[in-house]
């Protein structure tokens, strides 16, 4: 009888294991895909892992089998490693491309990721459907807006002065005034560098994010546009100043 019970247990494990991969995932939740992901990314991607292998900064990660239908699809967690857009900052403070094309899109054999030329002008004009996401700034928490004491996102943005500007376009330039970060939603491609360097975000990350990664990965659709939507983090947790969310 005991053997029988054991066997039943083994069978149960086996069956649940077999069906784990078949479980439908929540596809409606946006996940930050590598740059150049098409709309029909999930259908085209063959989960080969070459984009991760090609990434020079190890920004691309994979879900494992426990993610159900999303298993082995690539994502970017900007809090752990943002997308550097295949650019590296030189000693003179200027970004230089380390590859003529974004490596992940160039490595993809399926057309799930398209190849994007690695130039600032091209990247700033990348259409909506190829964006990783768009970053959202909460001025009420932003140290630069509230205390005139920051500007990390502006200085670290790979598309500085295009995606992130030092002031909104309707604000006159005042001599001696600090940075007032402003996200150009058309030019921002959502690499997450601002999210990565934001001190407010990092403070929250240290306290909270390791226990609830979903806060970053699966934000509610359009949560970025609705202020003070905290999602599953619960009450009492303050919103991050900058985060990256996917629009579609």
């Amino acid at each position: 009888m005991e053997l029988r019970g054991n066997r039943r247990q083994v069978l149960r494990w086996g069956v649940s294991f077999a069906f784990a991969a078949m479980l439908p995932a929540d596809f409606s939740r946006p996940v930050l895909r590598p740059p150049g992901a098409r709309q029909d990314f999930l259908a085209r991607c063959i989960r080969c892992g070459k984009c991760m292998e090609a990434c020079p900064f190890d920004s691309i990660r994979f879900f494992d089998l426990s993610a159900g239908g999303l298993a082995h699809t690539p994502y970017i967690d900007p809090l752990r490693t943002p997308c550097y857009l295949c650019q590296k900052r030189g000693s003179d403070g200027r970004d230089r491309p380390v590859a003529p094309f974004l490596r992940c899109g160039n490595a993809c054999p399926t057309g799930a990721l398209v190849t994007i030329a690695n130039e600032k002008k091209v990247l700033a004009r990348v259409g909506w459907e190829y964006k990783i996401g768009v970053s959202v700034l909460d001025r009420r928490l932003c140290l630069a807006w509230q205390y005139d004491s920051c500007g990390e996102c502006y200085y670290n943005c790979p598309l500085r002065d295009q995606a992130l500007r030092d002031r909104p376009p309707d604000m006159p330039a005042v001599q001696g005034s600090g940075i007032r970060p402003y996200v150009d939603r058309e030019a921002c491609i959502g690499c997450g560098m601002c999210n990565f360097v934001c001190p407010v975000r990092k403070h929250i990350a240290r306290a909270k994010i390791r226990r609830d990664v979903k806060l970053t990965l699966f934000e509610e659709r359009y949560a970025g546009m609705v202020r003070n939507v905290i999602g599953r983090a619960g009450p009492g947790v303050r919103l991050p100043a900058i985060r990256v969310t996917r629009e579609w």
Partner: protein
Amino acid sequence: MPETHAHGVGRQRAVWSLRRLCQLAVLAVLVFVPWLSRNPHAWAPSRIALGQMPQPTLVPVSGDTWAFELFDFRLVHPLAFVENWLAAKTLYLPMLSAALLPLAMTMLLGRVFCSWLCPVGLFLEWNERLGQWLARRTGWQGRRLASTLPDMRYAFLALCLALAFFFAMPVVSLFDPPHALGRELMYGFTHGEVSRLGVGLLIGIVLLDLVLVRRAWCRLFCPSGGALGLLGRWRVWRIAMTAERCTHCQACDAACPYALMPMSLLDDGRRFDWTTCDNCGRCRDVCPTGALGYRFGGQR
């Protein structure tokens, strides 16, 4: 090639060492490519010393058995292409061209991927030795369910392709064993962690082999192997029997990992399961008189 003795007495030169070499080469690629791409110092110390960013172009090889790339020359598993086609409902021509060479290889040489290239097949062959050792040491003979289990490969394949079509998402890619191995190595070298479920899948396949039947996954479940077998059904390069040399010793029947009974080739070969045979050549290696050998074309 069979030797030309007057009565064909004597073994041929064994082909298994060449086959093992191919398998080990694939395994080496799976291990060393991610290792090199994470340790560029081992590859190009001079450029690192200049303070340049380690560019992945320094390592011209990438990918695994599911999708492979060498200097922009790309190969894709035929089943990956079919799944992509069914799921995306569009034909992506660069991918088709990348799948053509493996497709041609399978149609001409048969299911040689499984026996000559697949790294999991290599582990299963070593596992077979382990099973023999266990049987010798402990007298434990597993593999009692051998004859009771149906061949589910083609049903699995059809199910996976249907799911891929209707859910618009590839399915075999999630659990194809050689790809799972390659992915765990890739992820392990890149991010320093492996997925428990992925490693569990690989260990489970090996245990299945030990408990159920020799090459249990390959002959009962593997959808990608089934697809390659169907493609290689009408292969050109195949095992053939020279009837006058056969001494009916049945050594080949015992050696075949899929229990395909190569002795049945003494008839016209109609009863031989050409879809399952993967041209591994083990029957040919054990044949004491050189009656079995590879042929191009010829009888089937």
